[in-house]
Every structure is written in C-alpha cells, then in structure tokens.
C-alpha cells in the first residue's frame, strides 16, 4: 500500500513538474492572434548551413537569430518562426488560458494529494498492525539506558581510584549504542503521543542525552568530578523522561 502511495507521488510529481514547465511557452502554430504583442524571454536561434564545406560535413552549423530576448513579437516574427518550424516560444507573460500543461499540472496536484493520503494511511496502518514484540517499546529502551547509566554510577561509586578507561568505555556504550535507540522509534512515538507529546518527552530525554555526552567528554579530558556530576544529572533527567513517558502512556 505504502509503495503504491509513493509510486503515485512520484508519478504525480513528474506530471506536476512537466505541466509547470510549459507555463511560459506558447505554441507557434496558435498564430498571430495569441503571439502578437507578447515579449520573448529567450533568443530564438535557428540553425543554418555554414560554409566552408568541411566544417559543415563535420556537423558544424551557424545560427540565425529569429527573435531576441526582450523583443516584442510582431507579425514578421510569427511568420519567420512558422517558416523555420519552431514549435514553441518562451515568453515573459503568463496566462492561464495559454498554458498548455495546466491539466497535466492539475493531475499532478490531485495525484500528490491522493498519494500523500495513501502514504499516511498506510504508515498509520503499518504502525497499528506491527506487534509490539517485533520492536522494543520506548519503555524497554529507556530501561536499558537507565541500566547502562546505573553501571556507570556503580563504577564511579566504587571505593578507590576510578578506572578512567573503563569509565570511558561504559559511557561510550551508553552514548553511542543505547541512547540513539530511543529517538530511532520516533515515528511510533509520534503516532501514539502526537508530535507535541513526543516533543515534551524529548525535551527531558535530550537534556539527559546532553549530560551524558558531557560526562563522556569530561572523562576523556580527565575531569572526573565533572563527569560524575553530569552522570547524576543525566540519571535524574532519565527518571523524568520515564515519568513523562508513563504519563503519555496513561500509566499514571
């Protein structure tokens, strides 16, 4: 269903763009009634055979200017354009009545609307149908992150010297592997909580994320007291994230 929606969107986009492309073009065969008084927006050049012969044999041509950019089209121009079999002229003025691609553009607009509807419908249906067992729930991911942070806190609370490399490694697992998994479920969360709810949740979560990144940087630089403080702040913000998630899920 989703693939069909995207296919319709792609085809409709092509139709819309192709339809738009002819907005300023006027077909020469429509004659002086339509063309007279319009202003050309491009130089209309027609190829004429060039001398000397060898160059011509190689496919070289010279050109003759039939209509210059900015020139008002008169009867002489129309006649010369028709004689040279020029099919279209690009003009400065736009008119709905002259626009040949308007129905194609309209079709594109309708197609984009329809395609968007199908894509949205299919995306919602896919989210509703996907069993929770297939993907980890946000709560489960958050719990895993909190467990990772707890490991870091335990390491920091051990008596004696802190193993800085071990601390950096534990923090690395949290910031590089565990934290990115939470926002990866964005679509699912937006579908469940709405964009406003998701934003409120991410407000707390992103603050925790930043504290844990700071803890990593401070550890790498050897500022372990700063790292410890950041880990504590991060842990506290993760609790707030958990509470917000539970509120959104209606547990509380």
């Amino acid at each position: 269903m989703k693939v069909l929606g995207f296919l319709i969107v792609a085809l409709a986009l092509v139709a819309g763009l192709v339809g738009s492309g002819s907005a300023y073009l006027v077909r020469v065969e429509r004659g002086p009634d339509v063309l007279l008084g319009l202003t050309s927006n491009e130089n209309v050049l027609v190829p004429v055979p060039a001398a000397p012969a060898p160059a011509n044999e190689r496919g070289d041509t010279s050109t003759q200017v039939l209509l210059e950019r900015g020139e008002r089209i008169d009867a002489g121009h129309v006649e010369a354009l028709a004689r040279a079999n020029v099919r279209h002229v690009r003009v400065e003025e736009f008119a709905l009545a002259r626009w040949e691609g308007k129905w194609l553009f309209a079709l594109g607009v309708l197609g984009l609307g329809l395609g968007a509807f199908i894509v949205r419908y299919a995306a919602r249906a896919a989210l509703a149908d996907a069993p929770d067992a297939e993907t980890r729930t946000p709560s489960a991911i958050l719990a895993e992150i909190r467990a990772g942070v707890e490991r870091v806190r335990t390491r920091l609370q051990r008596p004696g010297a802190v193993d800085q490399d071990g601390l950096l490694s534990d923090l690395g697992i949290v910031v590089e592997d565990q934290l990115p998994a939470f926002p990866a479920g964005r679509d699912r969360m937006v579908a469940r909580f709405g964009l406003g709810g998701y934003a409120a949740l991410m407000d707390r979560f992103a603050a925790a994320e930043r504290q844990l990144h700071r803890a990593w940087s401070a550890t790498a630089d050897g500022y372990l007291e700063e790292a410890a403080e950041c880990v504590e702040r991060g842990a506290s913000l993760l609790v707030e994230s958990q509470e917000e998630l539970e509120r959104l899920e209606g547990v509380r």
Partner: protein
Amino acid sequence: MQEPQRHPASARQPTAHGGGLFGGRYPEVTWPAVLFGLFFGAVMNAAIAYSGLKIGFTIVGSAIAAVLGFGVLRGLLRRGSILEVNIAQTVASAVNTPNSGVIFTVPVLWLLGWSLGPGDLDFWLITLACVAGAILGGAFIVPLRKQMIEVERLRFPSAVGVAVILKSPGAGTAKSLVLVAGIVLAMLIYLPAGLPDLGGKGYGDVGWRLDVPVELGSGATANIDGREATVWRSGSGASRLPVELDRDRNGEPDLLMTKDRIDVGRWMGLPGEMQMVFAIAPFAIGAGFLSGKAGLLVLAGGILAFFVLNPLALRLGWMPPGLLAHEIPAAAFNAINRPLGIGLLLGGALMGVVASLPAIRAALGSIAKSGRSKLGSDELGMKTLVGAALAALLLLFIAADFVENQAFNPRCPITPAPVEVADGVANEGTAPGQVAPAEVTAAPQFAPIDRAVEPVQHGGYRVGFATEEARRVWAEQWSDIERDQFLAKQNAKPGFLSGLPSHLRALLIALIGAGWIWFAGIIIAQCTGMTDWSPISGMALLTVVLILALLGSGAVLGAVLIGAALCVAITCAADMMGDLKTGHLVGAQPRRQQIVELIATGLGPIITMAVLVVITKANMGTFGVPIGPGTDTTAPQAQALQAVILGVQGGEMPYALYGFGSLLGILLGLGSFPGLGVLVGLSMYLPFFYIATYGIGCVLQIVLSRFKGARWCEHWGVPFAAGLIVGEAVLALIFNALVLTGVGPS
C-alpha cells in the same frame, strides 16, 4: 551528588587551568579559546572571502577550526578540553561564516556602477545591515534548537564531522586512525584538483579525452587514448572536429576528466542532454554518507530533474531550436529547474514549519518554562533573544531608512558628464539609463552623486543630482513626461509601497525583511540539517525580487541592502544550528555557545566588507575595474544576482513557476515526511555534478548499513566520512592562503 573522585596517575590528566569565563571546573568558554576563535575566524574570513569571489562558492570553516583548535590549544598551548576547542571552533565559524552572505550580494553594487568605500555612507549602511542580519539570524534560529536538533533530529553532516574530530582524543586509537585515513585520502584526492591554481599539474593533465573515430576523414593524426585517431585541425588551429567531440572548439577532443570533474556520461556515450558528471569532491561523498537515506532523496530528485525533465523538454520542443544537445541542461536549468526548485524549497519549508508547529510550540514552552526556573536555563532565555532581535531590527530599520531617504540613481539625470570618479579624476562618463551587464563591467566607475544637493521626490523615487544647477533644470525645465522617461530608462517602475511616506516604507521593509529572514533561516537550517547543502543564492535572489516588488524596480540599493542582510542572516542561522548540533554531541551547554556566537558573529561582516574594499581598490589599480569580469575576482554569485536584478527590471522573472513549485512542495510534504519538498527542491536547484558525487556517499552508507550493520557504519563510517569533509576543507584553505599570498601563476 557524588564525592569527588580520585583517578590514577596514569590516567588522562586535566589541565591546571580554571574553568573559564562562565565558571565551573571543566573549562569551556576560556579566553584562549575565544581569542583563538576570533583570530583564526578573521583569517579564514579574509581567505575564504577572496577565494569565494574567484570561484563562486565558499567552504565551511567549522571543521578546519576544530582541527586547528586542537593543534593550537592542545598542541602548542598544552591546554584545551574538548568543550574548549568546541568553543574555539564556534567563535571561529561565527566570525568566518557571514563572508558568503556578503560576497554573494554586495559586489553587485560595484557591478551596477556604485562606488563603495569607507568614505561613503552607503558602505556603512550596508555594513550595518549585514551586522544586523548576523545577529537576527542567530537570535531567530536559537529558539528552534530544541525542535530541529532534539525533536526532528536533523543530521547536520558537517556538524557531526566536527563532533567526531572533537571527540577523537577519547575515541580510541583505532577510530582516530580511521579519521586520519579519511583526512589523508581526501587530501590525496583533492590535491590534483587544487594544484592547477598554484601552477601545478592536475587531473586535466592526465589527458583522458574522448575517442575520435578514425572514419572522420583525413587530417593530422594523433595518439588519443592509446590509439591512433584522426584530429581535424585547420591551419589556424580552428577545430574541424564535430561539436559533439569538441564542445569548447579548441581543436582537441574534449577532456573526460577536467580539473575537478569526470564526465562519465560522455564516456558512456549518453545523449548530450543527459549530463552525468561527477565532481571530484571527497567532501561531497562524506556529506552524502553522513546524510544517508535522506540524501538519497536528493539524488532521486536530481535524476528526475536532469534525466527525465530536461530530455522531455527537448523532445517536446520546449527548448529553442538553435541550442545544441549539450547546451540543453544549462538552458533548462535556468528556465525551468531552478525556479521550480526554489518554489519547491519554499513550499516544502512552509509545510515543514506547519507540520512542526506542535513541536515548535512545545520547544518554545520549554524555553520559557526553564527561563522562569530558579535553577537557571541551559538555553538563552526568550527575553534575551527578543531583545537581540529587536536591537537588530532597529539597526535594519536605521539602514533601510537612510537608504530610503537618499537618491536611488547613481548618476545625475541632467549632467552625466563630466562626473568625478572615486579618486577625483574627471571622466567623460556615459549617458544615464539602463546599463547592460557588459557595459557595466567595461564602463568607468562613477562616484556617488554629491550628497549636499537635496534629492527630489518623483514617482515614488528620490532622484539625486550632481549639482544644484542640475536640480534646478530638473525642477524648472523638465516636463513630467521627461521625468517619467528618465525613470523608465532606469527601469524604475513603482512598487507596492511606493505611495507610502518614506519612514513608514522603511519600517515596513525592515519588518517584512526580518520576517522573511526568519522564514529563510528555517529553510536554510533545514536544508543544511538534512543534506549539508544550503541554497543561499536562491534565497538572496528571492529577497531581491521581493524587495524590488515592494519598493519598485529601481530601488536596487535598498534591495541589495536587505538581500545582503538576509544572506548573512541565513548563513549565520545555519552555522549556529550546526554548532549547536556539534555542541549537543559533545555535551556543551547551548547557552554558552549561543552567547559567544551572537557576540562574535557581528565582527564577520565588518571584516568581509574591509576585504572587499581592499580587493576593489587593488583591482582598480591593476585592472581599471573594481570587481567582476576583467579581474581575478569575477564574483560569479554577484553576477548572477546582477542578472536577476536586470531580469526583474526587464519583467523577465518566472513568478508563476515559483508559485507552481511552492504548491508542489507543500503537497509533497503532506505525505509521511514534511521535508520532502525541501529535498526535491534542493536537488533541482543544485548543479547535478555535486548531487551525483553526494549520491555516491548516500548509496555507500545504505549498502554498508545493509551488509555491515548500522552500528558498524556509526563506529567506522562516520569518522571516515568526517575525515573526508575535513581533509578537503583543510587543503582548500591551504590553497586559498597560498593563492592569497601570491603563490602560483599571476
């Protein structure tokens, strides 16, 4: 709260320095970091502004500043935490970034006949507007940090690359080696692309050319691609090769690999209207890799534009019959793809903003709530931001008001000759009226009219005079018809606001300009966030069109003033967001970054304007023209803007295409991804050779993710891709610096 921890002697040791200007034990904002950023930002600003005027685009400074920050702060000064170096790169990029906004717009005034210098009021008004733009850009985008970085999770490829560099000391040896490998590889790939600027040999010297079929006939025989082939040459050296083989008509079959591009399409024998060209740009591969799937949409859009639309336009007879097949892509790009692409960008961005409204509301609510908290906020408060925005708005109004209250015409309508040139030498000037681009560049540059003579209001414009006598002739001897004819010659049609008093008009322009800056800043930040590309010149073009429509087609100075402010603002907005993304990834406090960036960024436009003055003065001495064709600094983007201004004056703008593109962009965003219109619009707006190379990076990321896993890509692919971005940027800056110091061919 934890007890302070002890750590073993063998562990990394913190530096003995204090915590910095905002307190705290962990150094973040320190004087060495700020001073390094200011100094190096100023150097980068000058070097990149100069090269940007030569080649038409600029390079991102954050990654270079991060690398050098490590070298200087950690290496030489033996200090510098990860966050300190982050502040150094934040300040450096804040000072450097506004240069592109200035050099893409301001030089158009020289091209159109104005003479700007420190002695002219116009010079200072434009500088003031650019400073206002820099502050506005930052102040407007800061409240969207939460929405773009924390909620939308935009990727910001270069910013991720900078974070990888900053974290490299703690990331382990293996990762650091991968980063260095990426840097070295990028330098090796880019070296032959940059060497020709210094007089060295490059990719073009490999001599990989098209095959010339032997059956073409008799002529000089040459060895081409390892085989004997016939090359047609006339006695004078004029080419006798068919144009399909020798598009530049230099008598040689065309190169398949030029200085910085590879034409795979011609090698494969694709029709001329399908140009499959790849830029030799490792940074684009790196950016594509970091963008991943989102970038693939840009590639798809590029293929749609350049391999479906353009050939269709040819087959349907939409292109002028005199064009050769290989000229179709450029013609179609200008006539169809670019305006539609800009429209798609606008519509897509509008849809993105509408779709994100709940998130924006929640983000703003969070900032307001934390601002009221006794614990203080990690974010710059709304009051501060509103204050900064109001101050910048006031600066913009002052600049617009001054411009509105002075003459619109750089030349006197009555006595065009003789007119004193800037250095005081009399010159036999030309007649007033519309100045064609070629004439502009060839004509001597005139000083602004004598400001002591009070201008006269006519047709919504203030007309200036060289002398009191000329003013008297205008008032007493010229009829209204003659005066209207003068305005018509200048293509000075009235705008929508022409009937309003000048102060009110200036206020409205400042307000509309500020609103447009906010919206354009969002567009650019979204584009940069999703793909690393920013359509700055497209936004400048729209700004100039908008202001000319409001003030009248003759109000070039006002349009360029607002256009320059906008360009500076949107580049600063994108830079601010990129720096904040880097900050998020290394754990920096956003508030501190925002403060230093807002303070430092105002310096950037002043430096670039000074550089422009130096360059134009030097050019006047050497070439007799201040800037543009005929000089080393051709200012390609300003020339494009000049064409737009002349196009607006001549009524040639395809407004309907912008509108249709916008509608399509809005509808594209109705599906599952509101930013789709932005990505497709960007792909139609950019030249295909960059999209193609960028696409290689995207495809690589997707393939590697599938076969090696997403985790592998994050661990090893990201540092390598970051290295590709940094390596090219560093080498490009070195080349720029060498060219600036006179190394290479004159």
